[in-house]
């Protein structure tokens, strides 16, 4: 079966919000005749925005991991946990399964997002024609798993609200959790700014 034509070759474009297919118009201020949103062939400033948001996320990622995210206080002890030490504790407390889930959501997923988004942006900028289909898959993966990194943030929120037994026992959020929440939002925004159609535009070779 022959590959189907691309909209750009046929002089057509599709609304990014409602998917209506229209004839190509060379007007940056054009609006979709159906839903009224701005019409454009590719997401505007896609690569610049995606890079900027990714870089900002990478900067916030450092304090997010170095600073503790949660303080557990009781009569006899005070215990500050970072993301990593919280996972180790969960493992030792006898829930290795959950420890693996939290490790995946809080460590593996953000790292993968940085690596994949960086790779996609560099390969698009070099007009690479290498494994375009697989790169599009990688993009879908990032979109799909991105928001699960909020897991640890919500865990800290619930525990802080629950464990409020005056001096006997208390859980408090610490600055690390704020940085981490910001990292998740920034990486999500970076992935949303990226336009996967760019992977298929101006490829050097097939």
């Amino acid at each position, binding site marked *: 079966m022959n*590959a*189907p034509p691309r909209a750009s070759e046929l002089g057509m474009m599709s609304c990014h919000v409602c998917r209506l297919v229209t004839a190509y118009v060379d007007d940056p201020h054009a609006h979709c005749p159906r839903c009224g949103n701005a019409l454009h062939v590719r997401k505007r400033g896609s690569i610049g925005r995606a890079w900027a948001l990714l870089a900002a996320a990478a900067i916030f990622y450092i304090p997010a991991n170095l600073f503790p995210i949660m303080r557990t206080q009781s009569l006899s002890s005070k215990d500050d946990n970072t993301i990593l030490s919280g996972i180790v504790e969960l493992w030792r407390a006898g829930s290795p399964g959950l420890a693996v889930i939290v490790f995946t959501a809080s460590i593996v997923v953000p790292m993968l997002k940085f690596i994949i988004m960086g790779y996609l942006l560099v390969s698009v900028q070099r007009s690479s024609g290498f494994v375009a289909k697989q790169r599009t898959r990688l993009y879908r993966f990032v979109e799909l798993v991105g928001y699960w990194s909020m897991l640890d943030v919500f865990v800290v929120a619930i*525990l802080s609200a629950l464990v409020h037994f005056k001096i006997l026992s208390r859980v408090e959020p610490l600055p690390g959790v704020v940085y981490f929440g910001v990292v998740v939002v920034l990486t999500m925004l970076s992935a949303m700014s990226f336009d996967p159609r760019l992977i298929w535009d101006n490829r050097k070779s097939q």
Partner: protein
Amino acid sequence: MHNAQELIVCEHCDSVYRRRTLARGEVADCVVCGAVLERHQWLGVDAQFALIVAAFIVFVIANVSPIVTLGLSGMTAATTLWGAVIAMWNDGAQVVAFLSAMTLFFFPLSQILIFGWVLWFARDGRRAPGFAQAMSALVRVKPWSMIEVFMLGTLVAVVKAHTYFDVVPGPGIWAFGFLTLLVTLFSSHDPRQLWDITREARA
């Protein structure tokens, strides 16, 4: 030139296809990049509206009832979703409080209300007032609704607290679990199909 309604463009690689009617359970994939073009919409508008009403009721229950109750030597403490938001705000994590309030309350609620609004009119094939804005809002809000993540977070928090406290799950946790189920059901439905099955009301 084909009628534009008959064409669909892959959102990930820009390939153009002629739309065809999908059989039950069928999914149209892009042959170039493997993205999903369209899924068969196996729930009719009435069924979707019924589910949205159910989701609204469950959402209210999930928000007013305690999620979990902790016990420590005779004392108990319970929290709701809003309890968690307020605790984060008071303990110096206002950014997290704001994020949680948006992703767990305002975005899911506006999704339910807006979808319910357009579906109510779509039952007679009509477009609701503000249809275009409502449809755009649905597309924009979708990635920021994080009920499923909160559900898993609650489970992790329960296991963590279980080491030191007596944990009693509240009705809120069941409501959130049920809501997660409903969200999953809806995720296979693209609200953009409503553009095809509704018509502008004649003035």
